[in-house]
């Protein structure tokens, strides 16, 4: 960083009268009103709804609302499903990210683009697509049902499937980027020391991308936790088996908003926590202590 005030540490700024007057940094001067006004409106637009949630929260009844068996069930189901979806995403997504980052074959670019489709696809459409693929009459689902007796839709496993479908691309994209920029030189060095490719992957590559792996997993988990559209379409809305927190919030809102607000606060807290974790990672990339 260039210090413009001439007072670099360890060196006195004023040596006689030679100190020049340096103009203020351009970026620090006032913001033009044409930008300041829409910026302020935009900021408020994003912030006021969250404030409303906090202001209208039934703070006194909160412990009671959150310890309600129905709320606890939804909370537990959400945490379990989001965690399971993250584990599945890690098991399938990390190798996928490796292939996308390192393999070379025709059509790889298309594959890479396809992987990101669920990122922008409306979740309801994702849920419908899952039904057509894995539903009881789906192109794969009918064989799962006929041969193994497995039915995914409208089950807890279906929730995990729906959440994985929507959340895994977050992990893949994050880890793929890290693998692509990871130091290939170190992998070469490992090879000259006798390490086979899988050993190189496990003992050199993965530790090097660990920060991004963690960031990707947290992002994936957060996305899975908040999943609504794909879940309700593919897995339905059955309390105890498929009704996760977002679904419970939507349901409760029709009758009694207070429990809905209480659960919303839990999701807001989770979101803020994730953001704090990720910011810390992103501000210090590769910060392996």
């Amino acid at each position, binding site marked *: 960083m260039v210090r413009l005030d001439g007072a670099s540490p360890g060196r006195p700024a004023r040596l006689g009268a030679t100190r020049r007057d340096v103009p203020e940094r351009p970026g620090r001067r006032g913001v033009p009103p044409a930008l300041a006004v829409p910026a302020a409106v935009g900021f408020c637009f994003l912030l006021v709804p969250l404030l409303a949630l906090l202001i209208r929260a039934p703070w006194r009844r909160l412990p009671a609302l959150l310890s309600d068996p129905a709320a606890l069930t939804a909370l537990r189901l959400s945490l379990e499903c989001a965690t399971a979806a993250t584990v599945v995403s890690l098991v399938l997504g990390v190798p996928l990210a490796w292939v996308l980052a390192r393999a070379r074959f025709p059509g790889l670019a298309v594959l890479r683009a396809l992987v990101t489709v669920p990122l922008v696809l409306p979740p309801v459409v994702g849920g419908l697509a899952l039904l057509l693929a894995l539903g009881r009459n789906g192109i794969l689902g009918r064989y799962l049902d006929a041969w193994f007796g497995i039915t995914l839709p409208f089950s807890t496993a279906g929730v995990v499937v729906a959440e994985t479908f929507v959340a895994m691309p977050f992990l893949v994209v994050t880890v793929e980027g890290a693998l692509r920029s990871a130091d290939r030189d*170190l992998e070469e060095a490992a*090879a*000259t020391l006798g390490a086979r490719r899988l050993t190189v992957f496990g003992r050199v590559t993965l530790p090097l991308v660990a920060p991004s792996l963690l960031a990707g997993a947290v992002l994936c988990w957060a996305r899975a936790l908040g999943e609504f559209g794909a879940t309700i379409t593919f897995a339905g809305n059955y309390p105890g088996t498929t009704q996760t927190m977002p679904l419970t919030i939507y349901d409760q809102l029709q009758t009694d908003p207070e429990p809905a607000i209480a659960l919303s606060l839990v999701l807001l807290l989770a979101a803020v926590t994730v953001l704090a974790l990720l910011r810390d990672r992103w501000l210090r990339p590769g910060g392996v202590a």
Partner: protein
Amino acid sequence: MSTETGLTVAGEVARGDFRLALEFAVAPGEVLGVLGPNGAGKTTLLRTLAGLSALRGGRITLAGAVLDDPGEQLFVPAEDRPVGLVFQNYRLFPHLSVCDNVAFPARARGAGRTAARRHALGWLDRLGLTEFAGRKPGQLSGGQAQRVALARTLAAEPGLLLLDEPLAALDARTRLEVRAELRRHLGAFGGPSLVVTHDPLEAMVLTDRLLVIEDGRVVQQGTPAEVARRPASQYVARLVGLNLYPGVLGPDGAVALAGGGVLHAAGGSAGTGGATGRVLLALRPSAIALHTERPRAGSPRNVWPGSVSGVELLTDRVRVQVEGSPAALVDVTPDAVAELDLAAGSAVWLSAKATEIECYPDPR
């Protein structure tokens, strides 16, 4: 098929469109220096020997075993080669401690953690690194990192040791210490080793024999002393600080220089074994004298006019760059500069004794 004990290389290494044709052998215990300008293919050669890139044609054998032979569809990948490569930038694993870095080869080959660490500590002890065992590579100085990289490579117990500019990343003082130490370790290593360098001093101290590569081929092979005395290319001549003139030796013993001018070497064609034809003349900058007026008859055989184009102060002498036929670098004392009133543009006379000029056949 082969019964050789060391390393034999014959063939072509390649990187993209670049080609380097080579043929050489290194005996067990011998240290071969590979000298050449940037982009000459030195690092590509090491990578090819290590199995990180493939030979375009030809064959590499180590202790009789074929490592690479495209003609036979044979290629032993890096992880299966008994070849250790110390990279120029060391490439220590930043997430592992010094001890675990050195334990890496044993771990990679399936040894348990405890056994691998014990093995690593043995190597750390041998290289005087025991006190750094618990540190991360980021906490090491350049010289320490270099030793750890060497320890890690030696811990893999390779049959061939490759060092890519081992001292290039070190500061001048550390270089001096590490150079002497490296010589010891190279001496203790039983197999053939290769050291890539572009530092002539490093080559003199560390290697037994030199291979000079330039323009995609080997331009010279010989002991460091031979190469320094009779360089075969401008690149080496500049490195060792000699004036080098290609020319044609006539029957009268005079050499017509390719760049213009004529020089006489003592004995004329004697130095070339009686042969006439394309020769190289090497002349030390300190063997040339400068004068403000033409030296009188009876003085050295080689006298020619020139004009000073640059004056540079070295530690104990002054290097004067003189344009003329031929152009020359001349070393004089600081006193002489004042006495002769030398500055850029000064007209001078140069003289050199014929006995100071080394004349030998141009290998090209």
